[in-house]
């Protein structure tokens, strides 16, 4: 049985093809302004990769913010359900999932089968975590990878208090102008995000193992900071940005 999952994110669209419960292909593209066409394109790329034809796909499920906009999808599921399913497939021991996206962060608690038990999302004033990293890398005139790298070299703490991403930005700007070392600022940025996400995640019961997924999970500095704040080990699946799409594909097969 072959199924596909498409994650219609605000920034990027990802497609995953699952064949007989195995990942057959993954593809990703920036969302742009024609999400439907991008989705089509992304899916076709995955199909090529998997070496199958469109007709072989039994079912297509979508997820993500734009999940309802895809005419050729058989059904759609919310990110929370998809995250839980996808993570459970990759890391069966995980009971608590943290998904940090560009605009929104989620905490999900699941059972051994990957069913959602409870979830929490950030409130108004703590939104925009993921996007915050990027705009801050600009303010620091560093690429995101470089910002992550130097962040590990930080020696001093530089607190950022504001929960509001936009206010936090101006705090960072004033830090920049008060001669504080870039490494420490980069570290502060990651720490601030981790701290905000963690206080949101704490609203659900935090049981081991804990996994971090979503594009931001590739950011080792944030993973470090999350460990520090939650005081537990954090597992990161391979290609964490595809977990939602994978979950959707698996649910389509179910």
């Amino acid at each position: 049985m072959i199924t596909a999952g498409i994650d219609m994110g605000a920034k990027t669209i990802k497609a995953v093809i699952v064949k007989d419960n195995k990942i057959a292909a993954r593809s990703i593209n920036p969302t742009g302004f024609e999400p439907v066409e991008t989705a089509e394109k992304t899916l076709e790329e995955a199909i090529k990769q998997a070496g199958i034809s469109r007709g072989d796909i039994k079912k297509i499920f979508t997820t993500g913010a734009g999940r309802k906009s895809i005419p050729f999808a058989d059904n759609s599921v919310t990110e929370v359900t998809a995250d839980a399913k996808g993570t459970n497939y990759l890391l069966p021991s995980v009971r608590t999932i943290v998904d940090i996206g560009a605009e929104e962060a989620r905490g999900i608690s699941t059972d051994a089968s990957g069913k959602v038990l409870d979830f929490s999302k950030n409130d108004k004033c703590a939104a925009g975590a993921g996007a915050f990293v990027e705009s801050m890398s600009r303010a620091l005139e560093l690429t995101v990878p470089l910002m992550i790298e130097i962040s590990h070299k930080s020696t001093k703490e530089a607190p950022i208090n504001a929960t509001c991403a936009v206010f936090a930005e101006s705090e960072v700007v004033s830090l920049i102008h008060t001669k504080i070392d870039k490494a420490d600022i980069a570290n502060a940025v990651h720490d601030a995000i981790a701290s905000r996400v963690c206080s949101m995640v704490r609203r659900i019961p935090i049981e081991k193992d804990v996994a971090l997924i979503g594009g931001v999970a590739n950011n080792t500095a944030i993973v470090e900071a999350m460990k520090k704040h939650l005081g537990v080990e954090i597992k990161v699946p391979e290609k964490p940005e595809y977990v939602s799409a994978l979950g959707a594909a698996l649910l389509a097969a179910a």
Partner: protein
Amino acid sequence: MTTGTKYKTAPLKCWQKGKELRLEAYRDLATGHEQGKLMVLGCAATPYGMLAGLGDFVFLAGEPYGASVAADPPVSIPAMETYEARGYARDMCGYMRNFLGTMFQDKYYFTGGPFPKFDFAWSVRHCPAGHPKWHQIVSEYQGIPMNYIDDETMLATDGEQQARIDYVAGQYLDSIEWMEKITKRKYDDEKGIEAMRNYFINEGLWGEINLLNGAIPAPIDIKSMFALMPISMLRRHEKVAIEFLTELRDELKDRIANKIAAVPNERYRMCMLTPPPWSFLKVFRYLENYGVVFAGTYVYLINSGEVKFLYDEGKVVPATPPEKRPGWKTMKNREDLCRTVARWRAEHPFQSHLETRKKEYVIMFKHWKANAYLLLINRGCVPMTTSMYDFQRDLNRQGIPTSMFEGNFADCRDIDETGVLDRLETFLEGQGIQKIQDI
């Protein structure tokens, strides 16, 4: 996808009448003085029936008025901006911001005419940062006298309650003298008592109506309840309200007998602890697409004297008028009146103690045969939101599912509608409830 229609439905017969009664109350305010009536500003928790002792009056409760404005963003936003332009903060009581906004604009929402000028403000301090200070701003602006009763005596379980009831009763007595002084009218104890009798009867009736929604299918949906609420909230002291609420109650009983549903495809029942964002009532309509019906909400429908909780049996029944309760005196004079009101307030506090409230939430949940609670983190009201996370944990501990969203009951700018709807869909998905169809 199946169309989950299960029950027959029909509009409420008394709907139109209710609408007229509601608007009448608001319209009266515009002409109150021409009619030679006293115009009094207060809050929903003010036992305004007592005012009848001074003669005819019209009474405006700030909250329902603020809610009406808030439900109408094109009016609400400029009103709040007028208020903000005077340097008042954006994170204060949402009702107040809409109220003061239209006051500063001198635009009375229900007529578009000038904002009512009150004779005095008589408030209850059931909200630690709120109503007396709200009315303080009005009294400064309109140059009218104000007085208030410090209440919410149930907030504490430590210490003894009786002394607090005496304190509240004493304040009521003093405020009657104060009213006589500022209005230069003689207070007629009989009239005051009579009006408060109606007030108590209405409370019980409204409670009975809200409890009828324990039936499956629910005979009335929460939107209609809110639309009719002002009658119970603004005209409790009037015979006409008793007549209407009796009619409504009987119609609901009739609907229950004939299984006439508010939401024909009802298959999942929810209830709330607080009012919803008034600019966002479409959330209920949206959820009807999933076959979700809202049986009621604790604040406004339950927590201001409408019902009596039998904690040991885990039951809830409509409130009986105080005088008919064992161990309560018949009211003969203003002292009796003030004592009765104080004691009644103590037993039906707007803000009862957390632990008491936790019990009541569960009883209501069971009575309404609900599947889940919808909780609002309300940026527009501190007391309604303090401890909301505590409540959520408590409900979950008892196996009651909750879905929580952040918003503001009176500021449409404070809600991420797309985000909230997405959150609700996610929650229902977890509950195994899929969308039925677009209605």
